């Protein structure tokens, strides 16, 4: 009875999370001007790893099944339907018929076969290959009809349909020769000609001006249409300007040179908000999937001067006491101007489907923290310094990325909180690569403040963090066997949830993972910043989401709203650079 009730409740939560109002029909025409912090390095989905490149590629290509950024659920894209086998190891995908690439060439099952062959080919070394590995084996795709394919996995995989999101379907007719010749890594650069490219996305590459902008044209063959059966996208052009820094983005946005600003820092958001411009819409989409955490070095191979401190760090009650002393509300208010959510568990509330609601949220309490430390055997000297059992003053450093000013400020506050316990804590900002080197290679650090998450809402992409053998299990990575019983339990739960296809059962497994993490505190969760975006009011259907890409995930539905009645006209400030 209780199990059924839980299932019903989960279903209700799931349905609530999944609600999304339909997009209003727009009017065609116009240019959308978007800011990018840097210019894309490539237009090739097989080599792109930088955010600007991936943002452009998402506009040029389509996938078989996509994750709706708003509902966080999967929905049909180039595969109009799919059916899972009872054993959970194979899926039959029915592809859309009558779909054409942006160069007019028809799309069929051969393109899908070719695409997966390329992505899973070790020699190509595509960054997506790891996502397509299930149980150490790549997914297999075979054709059963001109528009039907069967995808086979080596083992059951929960939410298997999510792995298709972001896998851009490639045009076999253009790329097969390059693939056979081993030239795929060198094609589709920003200097390539538009004629050499084709995709199934809403836009197609038109022109690139180095260091300034990249221009995309509407794909006349795009396969999606609106409620009035009008072919999408609405905008004729998208211009993505490389602005360099976020300050430049804001300045150009305020000057009317940009329509959409992607994810903004809280400070920039506040700066635009203070202007109170009538033609600007600012959206706080709520808690993101990103979570900032502090963790201690529990590596068994840490240098001797760190190992001497691991007696403290390795004690769960020490970590719990330090967690109690952290002023999470203060961090959200002081660092993000209140546009962040304090965290007690590692899954932010923005992850509406998976965040456990029953994680304890004890309020900040220095006396309670001191009481725990006393119980463990710590004491204080006359100067108020915290001493361990041996009388050694508790002193350590927190490393943080110097390039992330918000995270540096979080570290400053956290260190100040811990000083109230009598601990001598120093913040050491390090260049990000130097920081990673200490985390991954030398293991020479005491504590670290880092941000995780931001990708998919599903737990599976974070296997690498929570499995004790994972390379991103930072506090003690790549363990041959779990160092602690609770890590062994985490391994078991994460592996089971990965292969459990029943949602309620999987939800219960991951809930236990969250409870273990919240109890053992291998990471001290701090805050999750909100997703903040800005756009001109003249951009219709603007509906930012907390998943990447925050503002442009529905680019095909965006349109220009004009008050003069000239629907779709380009305003003066919207003139495309370099175009008469």
């Amino acid at each position, binding site marked *: 009875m209780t199990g059924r009730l839980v299932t019903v409740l989960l279903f209700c939560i799931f349905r609530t999370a999944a609600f999304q109002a339909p997009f209003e029909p727009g009017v065609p025409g116009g240019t959308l001007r978007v800011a990018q912090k840097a210019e894309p390095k490539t237009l090739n989905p097989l080599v792109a790893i930088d955010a600007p490149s991936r943002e452009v590629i998402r506009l040029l290509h389509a996938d078989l099944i996509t994750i709706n950024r708003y509902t966080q659920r999967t929905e049909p894209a180039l595969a109009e339907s799919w059916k899972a086998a009872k054993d959970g190891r194979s899926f039959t995908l029915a592809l859309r018929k009558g779909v054409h690439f942006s160069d007019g060439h028809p799309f069929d099952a051969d393109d899908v076969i070719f695409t997966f062959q390329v992505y899973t080919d070790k020699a190509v070394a595509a960054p997506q290959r790891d996502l397509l590995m299930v149980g150490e084996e790549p997914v297999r795709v075979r054709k059963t009809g001109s528009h039907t394919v069967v995808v086979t996995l080596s083992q059951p995989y929960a939410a298997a349909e999510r792995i298709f999101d972001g896998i851009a379907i490639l045009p076999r007719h253009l790329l097969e020769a390059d693939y056979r010749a081993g030239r795929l890594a060198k094609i589709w650069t920003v200097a390539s000609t538009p004629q050499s490219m084709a995709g199934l996305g809403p836009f197609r590459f038109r022109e690139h001006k180095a260091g300034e902008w990249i221009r995309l044209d509407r794909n006349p063959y795009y396969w999606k249409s609106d409620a009035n059966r009008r072919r999408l996208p609405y905008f004729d052009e998208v211009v993505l300007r490389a602005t360099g820094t976020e300050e430049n983005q804001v300045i150009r946005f305020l000057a009317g040179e940009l329509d959409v600003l992607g994810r903004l820092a809280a400070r920039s958001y506040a700066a635009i908000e203070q202007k109170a411009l009538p033609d600007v819409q600012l959206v706080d989409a709520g808690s993101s999937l990103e979570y900032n955490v502090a963790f201690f070095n529990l590596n068994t191979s840490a240098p001797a001067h760190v190992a001497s401190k691991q007696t403290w760090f390795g004690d769960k009650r020490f970590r719990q006491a330090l967690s109690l002393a952290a002023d999470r509300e203060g961090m959200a208010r002081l660092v993000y101007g209140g546009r962040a959510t304090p965290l007690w568990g590692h899954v932010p509330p923005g992850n509406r489907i998976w965040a456990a609601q029953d994680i304890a949220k004890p309020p900040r309490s220095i006396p309670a923290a001191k009481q725990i430390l006393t119980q463990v055997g710590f004491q204080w000297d006359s100067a108020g310094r915290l001493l361990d059992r041996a009388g050694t003053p508790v002193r350590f*450093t927190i490393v943080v990325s110097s390039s992330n000013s918000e995270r540096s400020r979080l570290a*400053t506050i956290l*260190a100040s909180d811990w000083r109230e316990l009598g601990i001598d804590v120093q913040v050491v900002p390090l260049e990000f690569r130097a920081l990673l080197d200490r985390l991954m290679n030398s293991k020479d650090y005491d504590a670290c403040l880092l941000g995780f998450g931001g990708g998919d809402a599903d737990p599976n992409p974070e296997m690498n963090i929570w499995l004790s053998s994972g390379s991103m299990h930072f506090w003690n990575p790549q363990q041959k066997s779990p160092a602690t019983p609770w890590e062994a339990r985490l391994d078991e739960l994460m592996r089971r949830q990965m292969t459990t296809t029943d949602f309620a059962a999987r939800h219960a497994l991951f809930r236990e993972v969250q409870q273990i993490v919240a109890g053992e505190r291998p990471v001290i969760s701090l805050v999750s910043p909100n997703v903040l975006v800005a756009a001109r009011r003249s951009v219709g259907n603007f509906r930012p989401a907390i998943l990447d890409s925050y503002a442009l995930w529905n680019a095909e539905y965006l349109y220009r709203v004009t008050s003069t009645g000239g629907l779709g006209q380009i305003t003066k400030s919207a003139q495309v650079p370099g175009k008469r």
Partner: protein
Amino acid sequence: MRVRVGPVQLLLCAIAIYSVFAGRLAPYPAIREHREFPFTPPMRLHWAGFAGVYYCGLQSAGAWRGFSEDCTRKWQLRFFEEGRLVQPAKEGPFFLLGSDELGRDQLSRLLEGGRVTLSAGVAASLLTILIGLAIGIVSGYRGGRLDDLLMALASLFLTCPWIYLLLGIRALLPLSLPSEQSYLLVLVVAASVGWPRTARLIRGVVRSAREREYVTVARSLGASEWRIFRVHLMPELRHVATAQFAVLAPQFVLAEVTLSFVGLGIGEPGVSWGTMLAGLRDVSILLPYAWMALPCIPIAAVFFAFQWVSRRMQYTE
């Protein structure tokens, strides 16, 4: 040579005294946070006749939306209590020069930061001059191969890319080194690397002086080398060293600011003028909260004051 005691020297003395007694002059400890009052603008003082000086409470308009004065709540500012010049009320904070992002008093941080920045600038300059004097005197006095070797070494040091050298040295330092120590160590290294110009100058003065007629006469009359050095060379070197100090000190004050700006200076919870300005990398802070740039004023004052002193010395030579 005499340096007249003018207003700028007095100002420098005042800054030095302020720095030495910063703990007493500052209304709060530099690291004391008032987290309910981030980015508070400079507050007004109200005069209440014989009742003394008071200040009003603050009304927040929301996170990052500023504060307004709420004079329904007033607190008297007390003086010479609890070992401090100024003692704000415990019920409500007082920020004469505003507060920073964590609600730390800018005035207290300015005073405490000045102590660190100025002392570091002075210490690094003195060290540079000491090294420069030692090497310059030996090189100029001994001449020959040793002179060639030392001057070649100076040339080598002059070609060093300082900032990369400092980045490398900081990376080699252990993380757990207290930030003040690591900062001083970096400055000591900076001074050690900065000696070549001073050494070359001193060497030139020594070489020139030892060839003068009165030195030759003294030597022919049987004066010892030590006497010649003490009586005839030292006075000239003292002038040069003093002038060098006036040139180097503001440079090292600026060096501290630069190092802190690129993250190589003193770290939290330490405070210096450089760390106070480092936050201004975020332009969106500077525009709405202009008082965060306050350390620029004493830095500029120190720089111009030292420059003025060195010019005056030039004219009074």
